[in-house]
């Protein structure tokens, strides 16, 4: 509809265009005023205890630690710790996802149903709670608590996505595989799975962006990643005076990492979109998948379920 928004009303004439230009300018001025107000608040000198005047948030006294290369070295180490946890968790989540999707679409009900319950359990629980659980119950290091919790949670989601991708494939793919003399598992692994994986790649990558964001929960369970390094360790070493500037720097680092990954995810989804497959996002042919992985997963799952119930078979694997 965004392209077709002009369909909703007559093409704007000179007066309507002028009105929208004026509105645009007014809103722009208001937004600039808002930003100016925030900057003014930040630039105003602070009142300390006992009427003591402290430097403003933007004064160089609050930013001078960033000339010290050691500070940057620590920030870099924190970033690396974040990326390391995210990378290990991502690999594990992918592995879990593959296994879970295969179990979830297994032929035997005795495998399928427990897997479904397992997946629902891990999807419905807060990741933070899972981290605490693993930390206390399995008494591992904080790193492994973070990694395992993220891997289990995202593995469950990726598993669901892959299962939806498997179900969404045209039935002929499996039939062709079987008629070539492949076994069930062979056809699944060699014919169906690669296609499902490719179909669901945008969701999976978007989910990995979420995973990277969620490593910040390590701050709460005590894993020394980026947030804990800057906002806890560095802030307590240099004093709370620098907390604001440290916060801003941390924020920028996170934004840079996440934006880069999101752009990659978007690029990937545009690239894979042209690829064939029996699945379309939404009603418009060639519609882009929703950017939110959760939402995309919902659509994929629902289409998968609708497909299975429409063909009458309970299990996608039982059709031979």
């Amino acid at each position, binding site marked *: 509809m965004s392209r077709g928004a002009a369909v909703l009303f007559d093409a704007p004439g000179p007066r309507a265009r002028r009105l929208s230009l004026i509105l645009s300018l007014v809103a722009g001025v208001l937004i600039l005023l808002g930003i100016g107000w925030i900057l003014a608040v930040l630039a105003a000198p602070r009142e300390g205890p006992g009427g003591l005047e402290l430097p403003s948030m933007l004064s160089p006294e609050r930013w001078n630690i960033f000339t010290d290369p050691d500070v940057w070295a620590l920030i870099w180490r924190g970033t690396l710790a974040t990326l390391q946890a995210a990378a290990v968790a991502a690999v594990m989540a992918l592995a879990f996802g593959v296994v879970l999707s295969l179990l979830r679409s297994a032929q035997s009900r005795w495998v399928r149903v427990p897997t479904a319950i397992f997946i629902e359990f891990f999807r419905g629980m807060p990741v933070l709670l899972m981290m605490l659980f693993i930390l206390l119950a399995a008494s591992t290091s904080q790193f492994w608590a973070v990694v395992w919790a993220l891997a289990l949670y995202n593995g469950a989601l990726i598993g669901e996505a892959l299962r939806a991708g498997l179900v969404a494939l045209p039935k002929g793919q499996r039939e062709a595989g079987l008629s070539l003399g492949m076994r069930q598992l062979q056809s699944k692994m060699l014919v169906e799975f690669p296609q499902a994986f490719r179909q669901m790649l945008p969701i999976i990558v978007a989910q990995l962006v979420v995973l990277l964001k969620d490593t910040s929960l390590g701050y709460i369970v005590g894993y020394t990643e980026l947030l804990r390094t800057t906002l806890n360790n560095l802030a307590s070493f240099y004093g709370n005076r620098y907390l604001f500037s440290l916060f801003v720097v941390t924020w920028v680092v*996170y934004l840079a990492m996440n934006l880069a990954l999101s752009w990659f995810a978007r690029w990937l989804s545009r690239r894979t979109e042209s690829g064939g497959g029996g699945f379309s996002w939404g009603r418009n042919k060639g519609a882009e998948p929703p950017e939110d992985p959760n939402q995309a997963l919902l659509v994929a799952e629902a289409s998968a379920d609708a497909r299975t119930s429409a063909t009458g078979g309970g299990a996608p694997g039982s059709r031979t």
Partner: protein
Amino acid sequence: MDAVFDNLPRYLDGFSVTLLLLGVSGVSALVLGTIIAAMRISPVASLRGFATVYTEIVRNTPLTLVLFFCAIVLPILGSTLPFVIAAMIGLSVYTSPFVAEALRSGINGVPVGQAEAARSVGLGFGQTVSMVILPQAFRMTVPPLINVFIALTKNTSVAGGFFVAELFTIGKELANARGDAVVAVLLGVATFYLIITVPLGLLATQLEKKWVVQR
């Protein structure tokens, strides 16, 4: 097991705070998200730009950082809000772009042909939107919105890390107090979360399944 049942009142205390966080930030995220979505499809260019930048920035900031800002940085800047309110603000701000995205994708999902047909039958802008577009967009928005609220439910646990005594904090305290029954205590906490998230999830899947067939 009795570690759970003995402390049931404390669980319920935490659960009520969680529900409070969920309710208040859910409603305000809905309001905020609707405003952002309206900005994003509005003909006013500067509002559109603002909404896009806001969405990109907030969606790429971890929730932990948002709540850190609300609970720890804001007091440095002179705010005196209680932590519960700060957490509510943080949660609503963090959730609002997801709400906006759900609304926007719902409206985007209505095929252009629908609007074209309505227009060519002679309906005006108001009629087209209210009688043709919105009823169809509504169906496509509800399941994603439910999903956003499920995510919000799980996200309220992060507020527990920032001085709000909700379910997660209670669980942490109880687990520390009852070192012998950590698993039972934490499974108890998980149950409370699952009470909200699993039925909502089933509802969303059910609705989406019902409506996906009609597409």
